[in-house]
């Protein structure tokens, strides 16, 4: 089975500006990949190339084996843009019905109801866009992206307008999509969210991939903290394996141990190391 998304040596130039410079990226079926990078790094350009809104200057991008931008590729893609709008006069159900017709989905009213349920908009099908909050419209945008059971879902900042409850709903939805074998590319500035759900993270800066890997591999060990009667002691070079020995030695020395915590780095630290540290 071909990868949900495969990008090879992709470059994009806008006159003298280089948005992407030889990017390689793959999203497998049933894989959830987070795309991170500072503003202007080229993340949205890469996503737009994948869904056919922008043509690459060089390189190849395929969606489920079809050239990105082709009719076949677009039929396999669900996309939520960072900046999008639905017509203010339209009802949620009408928006979904229009996209069902254009996506040639035969799901009908049952699919629309199910999608509204999945994004937490149960019973809101008759509501007009102009009466919906930005968060509700973003949920509807995600529902729209899932019409026709796409093999690749591209989400560009899908939770930027959502409250914590909405973010949790989207996280659960992303996990469910992965379990169904859908490849998801999540472009987000919310590192904690990416860390929570993504199988793999790709960091881009100045149009190039600067690092990639599983979140747990990218985050660094940060030592061990031990809480004793004398206060908290930090052992920055210690690892998880060292904890029994450290506790034994402290107890032998007469200290009272109240707690031990293995300190791990965060994805934010890894991101800052890869992007800011690299720039700085």
């Amino acid at each position, binding site marked *: 089975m071909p990868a949900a998304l495969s990008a090879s040596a992709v470059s994009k130039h806008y006159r003298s500006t280089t948005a992407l410079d030889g990017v390689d990226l793959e999203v497998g079926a049933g894989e959830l990949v987070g795309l991170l990078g500072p503003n202007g790094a080229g993340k949205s350009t890469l996503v*737009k190339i994948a*869904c*056919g*809104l*922008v*043509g690459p200057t060089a390189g190849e991008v395929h969606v489920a084996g079809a050239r990105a931008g082709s*009719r*076949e590729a*677009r*039929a396999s*893609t669900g*996309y939520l*843009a960072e*900046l*999008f*709008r*639905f*017509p203010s*006069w*339209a009802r949620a159900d*009408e928006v979904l019905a*229009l*996209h069902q*017709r*254009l*996506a*040639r989905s035969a799901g009908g009213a049952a699919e629309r109801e199910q999608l509204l349920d999945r994004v937490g908009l149960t019973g809101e099908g008759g509501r007009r866009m102009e009466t919906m909050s930005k968060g509700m419209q973003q949920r509807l*945008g995600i529902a*729209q992206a899932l019409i026709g059971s796409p093999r690749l879902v591209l989400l560009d900042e899908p939770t930027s307008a959502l409250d914590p409850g909405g973010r949790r709903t989207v996280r659960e939805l992303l996990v469910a999509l992965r379990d169904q074998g859908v490849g998801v590319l999540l472009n987000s500035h919310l590192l904690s969210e990416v860390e929570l759900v993504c199988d793999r993270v790709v960091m881009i800066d100045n149009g190039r991939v600067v690092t990639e890997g599983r979140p747990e591999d990218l985050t660094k060990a940060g030592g061990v903290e031990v809480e004793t009667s004398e206060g908290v002691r930090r052992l920055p070079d210690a690892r998880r394996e060292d904890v029994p020995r450290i506790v034994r030695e402290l107890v032998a020395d007469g200290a009272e141990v109240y707690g031990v915590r293995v300190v791990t780095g965060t994805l934010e630290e890894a991101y800052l190391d890869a992007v800011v540290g690299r720039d700085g």
Partner: protein
Amino acid sequence: MSDALTIAGHALREAVRRRVLLVVALLTAVFLALYALAAFEAFDSLDRNARGIVPIDEHALAGGTLLGLAMFVALFLGVVLAVFLTLGAVRGEAESGLLQPLVVRPVGRTTLLIGRLLAASAVCSAYVIAVFLLAVAITHAAGDFTPGSYVVPAAGLALGVITVVAVSLLGSTLLGTTANGIAIFMVFATGLAGGLLGQIGDGLKVDALTTASSIMSWIVPFEALYQNGLHALTSDIDGATGVIVQLGPFGGADDVSAGIWVWAVAWSAVVMALAALKFRRSDL
């Protein structure tokens, strides 16, 4: 084709739900009411103050001029409608984020443009035909005046606004919403000015002006279609009355070649092909 009809249906629903058509219908009703008032008053005045100037047919003069005015207003309002329905179809809607969710669907960009063309053409051509035929009916009721032809002017108006829809869609692929609106109205005004130059040239027998006008008419065919319609409107008025009507502000000085119909269709097709080419190559 079904995708184009889906897009056209969506655009039509938008026109209805945004109350564009309601506002247009109300304001058109106001225009037609004023037109009816003017027509009845004009013919009543002629009946009351018949001067019997030979060889002027005052009823025909009034009827031809009034209907020429109605035709101009129908064209003007039709063009306004055409421009406002399409001026932001590509770049404007892309900048506001409305277009991207549609473009990523497995529908060709050309199909999206054709859908917009179908919707705006249907609305605008139906509108100008309706306004013109209602004006014909009012003029007939007010002064028992029947134009030489009402099919040619109505068809000319319809095809004329379709050419404007096409060029506005092309403009929307090149320019932002405001710039496109300004550009299309300037093209429209230039076309009208070209037509007036031709009438002046005809009246003063200045060949250079009539030639320039003729060239302008073919460059922007809505003007040639409009002139052709005006000519057909009063084609059966002959003698001194015919000359006066033809030379008036709403008289069509020239009978444009029948090839204008084919030219206008081909011109619109080329303009749409250019729009599709530009749209297909645009990064959104």
